[in-house]
């Protein structure tokens, strides 16, 4: 089984780096699991194109991204693809194209393996200002996010 561990975000925009930082920390704290041959780690800034590549040939994926509107900063939620089905794009222009749209497009185009299992881990962001570091709340949540990543990967491996 091929499992993609994917962080989405930007390093230069405060808590938008949460997905990157969580995956990076997971690679350190769960090094044996992260370096296993069944795992491919990707950090993605532009999901519109890179996500389809990262999911190409994968049987399962754990995708970690910052969320907005899901509680206090640092709140972690685990979602499935069906949780995104009701998502309405915030913007009709290409700047509003994000993870839900890309996953939906990939599904419509048959770009993904049949039966691709995607688990999404969202880390609620506090601020995403240019040039700011992670907020303390998000930084404090990273160990728990790592445990969630590992738990999802172990659950996938058992399937």
């Amino acid at each position, binding site marked *: 089984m091929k499992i993609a561990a994917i962080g989405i975000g930007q390093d230069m925009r405060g808590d938008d780096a949460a997905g990157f930082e969580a995956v990076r920390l997971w690679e350190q704290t769960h090094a044996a699991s992260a370096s296993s041959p069944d795992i491919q780690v990707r950090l993605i*800034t*532009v999901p519109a*194109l890179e996500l*389809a*590549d990262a999911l190409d040939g994968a049987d399962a994926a754990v995708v970690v991204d910052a969320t907005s509107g899901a509680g206090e900063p640092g709140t972690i939620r685990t979602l499935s693809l069906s949780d995104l089905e009701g998502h309405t794009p915030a*913007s*009709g*222009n*290409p*700047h509003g194209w994000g993870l839900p*749209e890309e996953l*939906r*497009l990939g599904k*419509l*185009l*048959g*770009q993904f393996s049949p039966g691709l299992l995607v688990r999404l881990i969202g880390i609620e962001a506090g601020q995403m200002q240019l040039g700011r570091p992670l907020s303390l709340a998000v930084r404090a949540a990273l160990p728990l996010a790592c445990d969630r990543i590992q738990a999802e990967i172990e659950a996938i491996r058992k399937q």
Partner: protein
Amino acid sequence: MNRIDVPALARVEGEGGLFIGLRDGQAVEVRLDIYEPPRFFEGFLRDRFLQDVPDITARICGICPVAYQMSSAIALEAALGVQISPEVYALRRLMYCGEYIESHALHMFMLQAPDLFGRESVLELAASEPDIVRNALRLKKLGNAILSCIGGRSVHPVNVCVGGFYSWPSAESVRSLLPELEWALDTAVRAAHWAGTLSYPQLQIDYEFVALHHGTEYGLMRGEVLSSSGKATPVAKYEQEYVEYQVPHSNALHSKTRNGTPYMVGPLARLNLNHEQLMPGARSALDNLRLNLPLRNPHLSFVARAIELVHFVEEAIQLASTYSPEGASRIDLAVKAGEGTGASEAPRGLLYHRYQLDEAGLVQSARIVPPTAQNLPRMESDLRAMAAELASLPSAEATRRAEDLVRAYDPCISCATHFLKLRIQDTEAE
């Protein structure tokens, strides 16, 4: 009363609004309200060293950063009086080909094609026409790969500098693009044929077209600013012929000719003025469509982009096949005070830059005229010409027609300073 409200126009880059006031089937007021805040790029370029400029101006746009890098580099090289090598020029053209491929693929298939198929979005189009969207994504990926290969990354590349490139990409990495380019050429030729079979809204406008023109190559980074009126203007005298002005409803400046008339830049202008310089395959694809040039229907910009897609893939194959880096990738610059202008053809049209440098090479003043800002008065004039038709249509259809028109221009409001909300108001009924 006839009134239409659209919170935001979809499938354009940026955000803004549109107001049309009608009386007796005539437009009494048409405004493209560009309400996004100004971005102040010309302001914060001041006192920056000249070599910072291509990297800063690239941030103006995520889709056409190469255009901003090239226009700024050309202008600054003119200010310093330096001439880049033919090898650098060829590599810049190849990089620009990559930008055209990714930008045209995005606009044609993902932003404008849903209009032509009566779909709301690319997601709806993907459900009914998955091959179109699959090919679009593959083309976009190819364009991005060219930018990554030459520029170091696909968005806001970092390898372009005043005087050339910081380093040559390896010949091997450039040649590795060829198999996918060969696929893209076949795909682009088929797309051009397909574009000729589609139905487009009918609209004929007597435009003044303006584009860079060069006698021996498709106008891109050198030549004169040619108008369909017959006037050819050296880039250094652009501001004498084309004048920017402010309007109360827009944070983007507008442009007009010295005679006070709007003009059109972009793919339709380029194709109409430069079709004789197309690569052979693109020329053949155009001939096969049996169109009468000049094209005067703005919706046929889709066809123009399709022909240009063939051209730029074809040119990319030629440039990648013959790429053989030799010598220094950049000129050692002797910094001095001076002023320079530069223009290149961004995918959306002519992009003009002017810089003034002090003796330390610091920017004292900067002037950037993006293509969408030049096209804004033209879009408003087109909508005015459509007013009687819009007034006769049910509001939902009128909204759609107006949006389709604006999208045909592929406005990049992020560049112009970002864009669309449509309100059509019957002023008589107010």
